[in-house]
């Protein structure tokens, strides 16, 4: 069993998943950041509407980008010739 895990960890797929996860981390990070900024704007009562509008736009854009790349990379993986 450890052999299987080891070979998985050394394989290309593992590194590729790590690379893809960077994008997910970026999207999550931006989401958390923008939500934090909205929260701060509520705390100090400072034009909450502007914060919410910009945050919604930003969050949507980043998740769409992450989604597109994931779609491509999963699609490429699935579309490989059999036996490779």
């Amino acid at each position, binding site marked *: 069993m450890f052999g299987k895990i080891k070979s998985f960890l050394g394989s290309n797929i593992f590194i590729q998943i790590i690379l893809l996860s960077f994008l997910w981390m970026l999207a999550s990070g931006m989401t958390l950041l*923008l939500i934090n900024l909205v929260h*701060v704007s509520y705390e100090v009562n400072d034009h909450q509407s502007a914060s919410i509008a910009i945050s919604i736009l930003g969050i949507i854009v980043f998740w*769409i980008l992450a989604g*597109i*790349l994931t779609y491509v990379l999963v*699609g490429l993986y699935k*579309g*490989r010739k059999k036996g490779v």
Partner: protein
Amino acid sequence: MNDHQFVDEDEVLFRPIYQTSKSFYILAAALSAVLLFGVVMYLRQFIFGLGETGMNEPVTWGFYIISFVFFIGISHAGTLISAILRLSKAEWRRPITRMAEVITGIVLIIGGIHPIIDLGRPDRIMHIFERGRLQSPLLWDMTSITAYFTASTIYLYLPLIPDIALLRDRGGKFHKLYEILSWGYQGTAKQKHVLERAINILMVMVIPIAISVHTVISWIFSMTLQPGWHSTIFGPYFVVGAIFSGIAALIIVMIIFRKVFHFEDYLKKIHFNYLGTLLLVMSLLWFYFTFAEYLTTFYGHEPSEMRVFLYKFTGGYAPFFWLMVFCNFIVPVVFLSNKKLKTIPGILIASITVVIGMWLERLIIVVPSLANPRLPFITGIYVPSLTEISLLAAATAAFILGFMGFSKIFPLISIWEIKEGREESVRMVSARLNEYLPSKGHIRKEIV
């Protein structure tokens, strides 16, 4: 892994990755020295304070903000041109898109660092994330540049995948890297379909993001009350200026790499002709916006606006202003509308002057409005210091170095798109023609 003696019909496109000439190393060393000098000057500024620059009251923004706007402006070359050309299915885009997308990637990093260089307390940058204000244009800026950088990197990477697969199949150096990055691409129909679909979605999505980036940057200026800045035209004006400077930078990059890497067969005169025409159109558009902006200012004759206006037209900044008009309008129109002058050297001259002129335009926008504040009892003077000039040189060196580095790992011209163009374009284009043209009469099914 052995270096196969591959003789692909597009071998010249692969060669830069495998062969490095001596002059490459010398140039890389020289540029690295310039970059290092810039970094050292910045460290001095970090230790001693922003006083190392030439900024003062009232001219509180100088070279760093100018370079910030300038470099982000050039980024519009890449992704916007590549996306628009792909969207309009222009076949001549094939050798251009890769270099355009690389310009965007590199230049966004360089441009994005400049506001941090400009901060008085960069050690406090976490304040923006912990307790920032989304109501400030600087935060809109941060969001949109990050979004644009992410989108354009993905947009660079996706069409790069088939090329990485080609490189992987050749064996040789970086084999492991290519294996990982190619994500098992083998050119199967399903994979091609997935890739094409994603590129299509992205190329539509990237255009509004790109336009929003420079609009938001212009709003940093136009959301203030300063005379000369508080103008509604700034959004479109900056976008037009960005595309203008971007096309010029793209042409320069293309001409240089064409010469150095012997891409003459791929980057033909016709590509430069078309780009030259685009550059001419943008020059005229730029002139239209500039003329409209200054005419309305002059006609309204508001005192604080007129102080800035006269400072630019006849006052201390007149040499820079008229040089900018010369570089951005007179030289491109003369060189690019004249068949005799529209040669590759001519287009190169026009592009270089445009790049210089657009940097001057940012200078003309930033400094005169600050030097002539609304409360008219001070006129500021701004003299850039060695720190600022060396950082501008370092930014340019970083740009060239980034390109050189990229050319050593990935092909600068999209090899699979050239191959696709050779094999499939004729069929695709004639199929499209059949859609446009009337069905009556004799229609040749395929144009040989």
